[in-house]
């Protein structure tokens, strides 16, 4: 039998259905793949082998009795920002100590409801704050891709770097991820995988460790567009436990993939060109435009004039929300505690030793912009700029049905290359962060390789609630790009 990890999610579902193999066999293949690669890639923080085999066995029993879910028997990796009952959940921070939640996140519970199997918990930037996975308290994830010219270890991107690396290296059939400023799409672009952030409110935030609540959204990272559609359909849906969860029907995304783009208007925003962007990325963008034109779409030039203000606005809104959300880590009710001489000293020592440098920086920025005398100048102003950014998109939708842009301004960079300059690191999210501020759905799909043999991604941004159009466009682009290269 061929190695089962060669099959993608959709093929694995067919194989399980045909009885060619069992979920137990499939799960064992993935556990072997993890064992062989995780020491070098550091994608998994915890491998739940016993639980995985138990869940696979239960899935095989369900299948035998004719009770088959949409993800029946499919082994997945879970970003360690999702609470998983009884399984240590760290958010890649020391401050959570040995925290093992007594409850399950809504998104993961829906995956198990549909028959999926959990392989383990995936590494990330601490509290999802980072674009390279280097802020993890448990060491960086290494990208399975390498430059043709050198063996320098590269970042898989962040914050969902473990999810992206595990999918790219076939250490799972798909993974959960979260995206606050680009944390699903940028790692997908850096690893040749497909990552989507749906409309804000599509996936419940219940049981996901909070970073910036008005921006955080869950989504899958997958090997291809079909797998991505299957996973996202299972993850979405209304949840009364999240007050911002949208009470709307879940669309049929796989069906949307067959619709094509004939007559569709695709917007090309002139502001999505930045200084120092490699010519290859501009070329790739033009290639994407040509693919869509060939498939019958109409290409429209649009303007999103406030694009350059999105990142600075984000670096007020996100730290402000983070400083509030992370106030709960005080060493009293859960997580690690560092004893001091009194209560305040205990708080201060617990938080000083529990949080990493980037997390502290963001908490302090947030504390500052929310503090008396500065609130109007920073926080209120950023919220108004955010309204301007949304207005840009609303105006654009008068002219187009979806927007095509590059996902990131570069290919994967070397670990350590940008870690000494926070702003340089933040600029990674220049093309992705606008969708978070405006609450819009956006996907990244692998489109080509650069001169060094590294994957590059293109992003499709859709109207709020219109994931279907995104999948129609993504399916056409995927077919045209025919991206099939694997990391060496």
């Amino acid at each position: 039998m061929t190695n089962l990890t060669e099959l993608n999610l959709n093929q694995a579902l067919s194989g399980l259905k045909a009885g060619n193999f069992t979920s137990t066999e499939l799960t064992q293949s993935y556990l072997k793949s993890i064992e062989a690669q995780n020491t070098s890639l550091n994608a998994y923080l915890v491998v739940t082998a016993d639980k995985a085999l138990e869940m696979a066995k239960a899935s095989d029993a369900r299948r035998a009795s004719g009770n088959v879910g949409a993800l029946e028997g499919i082994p997945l990796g879970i970003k360690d920002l999702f609470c998983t009952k009884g399984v240590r959940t760290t958010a890649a921070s020391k401050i959570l100590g040995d925290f093992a939640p007594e409850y399950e996140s809504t998104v993961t519970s829906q995956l198990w409801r549909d028959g999926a199997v959990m392989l383990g918990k995936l590494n990330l930037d601490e509290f999802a704050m980072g674009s390279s996975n280097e802020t993890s308290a448990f060491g960086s994830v290494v990208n399975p891709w390498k430059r043709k010219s050198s063996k320098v270890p590269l970042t898989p991107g962040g914050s969902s770097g473990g999810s992206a690396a595990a999918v790219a290296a076939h250490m799972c059939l798909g993974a959960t991820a979260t995206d606050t400023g680009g944390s699903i799409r940028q790692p997908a672009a850096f690893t040749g995988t497909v990552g989507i952030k749906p409309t804000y409110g599509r996936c419940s935030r219940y049981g996901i460790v909070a970073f910036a609540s008005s921006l955080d959204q869950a989504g899958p990272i997958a090997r291809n567009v079909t797998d991505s559609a299957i996973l996202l359909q299972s993850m979405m849906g209304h949840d009364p436990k999240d007050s911002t969860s949208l009470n709307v029907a879940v669309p049929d995304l796989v069906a949307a993939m067959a619709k094509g783009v004939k007559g569709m208007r695709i917007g090309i925003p002139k502001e999505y060109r930045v200084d120092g962007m490699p010519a290859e990325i501009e070329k790739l963008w033009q290639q994407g435009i040509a693919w869509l034109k060939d498939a019958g779409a109409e290409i429209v030039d649009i303007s999103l004039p406030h694009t350059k203000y999105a990142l600075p606005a984000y670096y007020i809104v996100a730290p402000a929300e983070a400083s509030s959300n992370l106030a709960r880590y005080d060493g009293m009710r859960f997580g690690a505690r560092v004893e001091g001489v009194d209560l305040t000293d205990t708080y201060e020592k617990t938080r000083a030793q529990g949080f990493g440098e980037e997390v502290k920086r963001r908490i302090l920025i947030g504390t500052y912009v929310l503090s008396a005398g500065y609130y109007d100048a920073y926080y209120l102003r950023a919220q108004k700029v955010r309204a301007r950014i949304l207005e840009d998109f609303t105006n654009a939708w008068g002219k187009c049905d979806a927007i095509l842009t590059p996902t990131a301004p570069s290919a994967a960079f070397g670990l350590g290359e940008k870690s000494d300059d926070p702003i340089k690191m933040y600029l990674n999210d220049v093309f992705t962060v606008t969708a978070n501020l405006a609450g819009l759905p956006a996907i990244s799909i692998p489109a080509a390789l650069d001169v060094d043999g590294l994957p590059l991604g293109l992003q499709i941004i859709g109207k709020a609630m219109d994931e279907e159009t995104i999948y129609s466009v993504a399916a056409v682009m995927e077919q045209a790009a025919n991206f099939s290269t694997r990391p060496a």
Partner: protein
Amino acid sequence: MSVDDATVRKITKLARIEIQDSKVAKMANELNGILNWIEMLNEVDVDGVEPMASAVAISLPTRDDEITDGYIQASVIKNAPKADSGFFVVPKSVE
């Protein structure tokens, strides 16, 4: 607006994060770098713009004021750094 050492001490106190004296100047420097970059927002005309607090225009749902969950004391204190007889044990907080 620029952050000096005294401001760093004030906000680290507000955020309850201990900072070593030797690290104050470096943190001030890093925060100023970020805040100077953010100053760019002053170029944007925001006259008459309503601040946007939520990504989606929905009104928050309400529910009946009734107990739907509870009697899970053991679960609530399961992850406590210190607990005794069903209570969290914390440093003395009231004189």
